[in-house]
């Protein structure tokens, strides 16, 4: 896949609001993600950044506003939800591999049952992606036999074998030992270079600076600032952003 930033909107969020009981978590989020774009979402904990990306594939339900993925609106209609989940992949902080299935079964389960590809095709594609993330030799092991970094790379392969239009990363490196973070970030960097549309919540500033097309800074359930990485890190506009950056860059 070449760099293709044609401006076609993949995900469109208009005035998205969400409450947990009385607590207003998301306060009118507007965002348009175009094809091939890499967006990194930063913010202090509790700012609603994870909640926001989990709304995009309906792991959380938004109460007001619209979310469209490739023209399909996210509603209570289970058919819409199923269609959107086919096109939106997600990589979790805790990997969430299925411990009772082998690596290969973990990856081929959804292609076989959701995409309805046959088993041979699914396995071929799974092996292609396992090779891409560098661990084809682990295919027949169980998740419990792999290191954290390897498990996360399997999770990425599992997501990508489904050929999604956009991939959500929910703090993919936060549960990893420091020496394993780079192996996962390298995979993510490759994907970005190849033109995959990615939305990533992360605390990895190096990754944000070098890979992101746009950086979103969230606080208190709102998008406070949105800019390209260069402007964002060198010339932040808001006081809150400056405070956040000074806190994380100074220690």
């Amino acid at each position, binding site marked *: 896949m070449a760099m293709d930033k044609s401006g076609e909107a993949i995900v469109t969020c208009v005035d998205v609001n969400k409450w947990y009981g009385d607590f207003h978590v998301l306060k009118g989020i507007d965002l348009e993600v175009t094809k091939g774009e890499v967006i990194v979402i930063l913010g202090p904990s509790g700012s609603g950044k994870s909640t926001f990306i989990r709304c995009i594939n309906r792991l959380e339900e938004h109460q007001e506003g619209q979310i469209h993925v490739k023209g399909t609106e996210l509603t209570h209609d289970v058919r819409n939800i199923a269609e959107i989940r086919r096109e939106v992949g997600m990589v979790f902080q805790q990997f969430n591999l299925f*411990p009772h299935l082998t690596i290969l079964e973990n990856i081929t389960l959804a292609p076989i049952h959701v995409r309805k590809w046959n088993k041979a095709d699914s396995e071929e594609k799974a092996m292609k992606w396992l090779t891409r993330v560098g661990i084809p030799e682990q295919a027949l092991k169980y*998740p419990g036999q792999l290191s954290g970094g390897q498990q996360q790379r399997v999770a990425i392969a599992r*997501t990508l074998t489904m050929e999604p239009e956009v991939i959500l990363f929910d703090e993919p490196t936060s549960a990893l030992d420091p020496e394993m973070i780079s192996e996962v970030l390298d995979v993510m960097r490759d994907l970005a270079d190849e033109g995959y549309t990615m939305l990533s919540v992360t605390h990895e500033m190096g990754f944000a600076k070098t890979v992101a097309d746009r950086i979103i800074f969230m606080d208190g359930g709102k998008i406070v600032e949105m800019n390209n990485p260069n402007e964002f890190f060198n010339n932040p506009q808001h006081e809150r952003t400056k405070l956040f950056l000074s806190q994380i860059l100074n220690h």
Partner: protein
Amino acid sequence: MTVNTMKAKRKFDMGTFIRANITKSPLLAIWTVALAAFAFWFVGRSMIARPLLTIPVVIAWAATIIWMVRAEINKTHSPTTLWLKGNLYNSITNALLSLILVVAIIGFLVGFITYAFFNASFSEDPAIAKEVTEAGQLGARWGSVTQNLENLLVFSMKTEMYRIWASIGLLVGLSIPSLIIFRSAKFNRSLIRRILTWLWIASPFIIFFFLRGVGEAGGSNPFYAIDTEQLWGGLLLSLILSVVAIVASFPLGVLLALGRQSKINGVPWWLTYGTAALLTAYLIVTFTLPNLEVAETTGNYIYALLPLLIPLIALFFQKGFKGNVMAGACTVFIECIRGVPLITLLFSGILLLQLFLPDGWEPNKIGRVMVAMTVFSAAYLAENIRGGLQAIPRGQYEAADSLGLSTYTKYTKIVLPQALRIVIPAIVGQFIGLFKDTSLVALVGLSDLLNVARRISSQQNWLTIRTEPFIFIFVVYFVVSYAMAWYSRRLEKQLGVGVR
């Protein structure tokens, strides 16, 4: 220097020993003296009754204590003396208890062996049995068991043994290839393995067919239907009842557990409107049309047309009702069943089941008991499985959702395989309980193992003989239950592959 002082400190000290074991508190002193007195009396009695067995035990006890104490004082412990110190003689109390227990166990074993073998009669002739056992002090008349062995194991099915041999043949025929195919990795995912799995799943149904039969007698079919209420009994009945309840309650329990967890609010539209449409059509045919024909006044007409209100009610119900019917119904069912003892359910099954069944469908007593036990087992199973479902981390559900798996695939491929593995010990424990609970059907008049054993004492040959049949069924219950427990441990280990 330091090493010497440490050695000196660790040296055995009589004063410390007496303080720790006797004079620490007045209560401990009284206890130790009382226990010593009891041990003296108890062992003394045993010595008079069984000197040849007791005296060596006492000598061995004293010798090992002296050996252990010498090792302790001289610091020359070997693994054996350390084991003695740690397990048998780590205080005066424990040393005395060890002696008392060994002597007591010997006493029990000697008594039992004398009763069961030396003084026992193995003759099936009641007169000889009586003579032999009354010559000695107390002896078992095993003839009561051996003569009734067929009754105890298969009851009146002894006239239909070919059915039982067919069933056993099927099980053996499946077991032998299973030993090879399920053990070897070569057959993983092979077709033959899948066929064998399906045969195992089908085997309870095939065996049920063998034992119960279908169709009239006299034809070419050797497995014609028999009167199960008259013929089934003994261990066979206990096994049939528990296996039927286990097999039938398993899917029911899974569904109940999932139902209780469901978060679906309201009723699906097709269910409401489908029911309403059927009900309306039925009432129009059976109620409206006949009434319209004989209607005279306006009131009569309105009365006849009342069923037409049903669709309207259904519409309001569908729009207005937002409760979780599924979870509610499952909870009520589970709690009602768990709230009553099994024996109550058995009686309800016998007396009330008929009210819920359509006319002309009258299961016999065994069928009713099966229904009652299945329902009972399903309610408990549902709660066990629900425990397993709750132990699955939320991330597993989220991963399945984010991959777009359907609810069906999510549960059958991800959630249930993991949840059921977690609850295997609980489920097997419940099944062992169910097998033992089959003894309750004696109370509703079925001839299970317990009932047959009880009835032996009223046979002409074996009047008042109770102990021997009960010892026999004790062994049978124990062997079957222990086999299940052993298999469960093996299954757990096997399924433990790849657990995080």
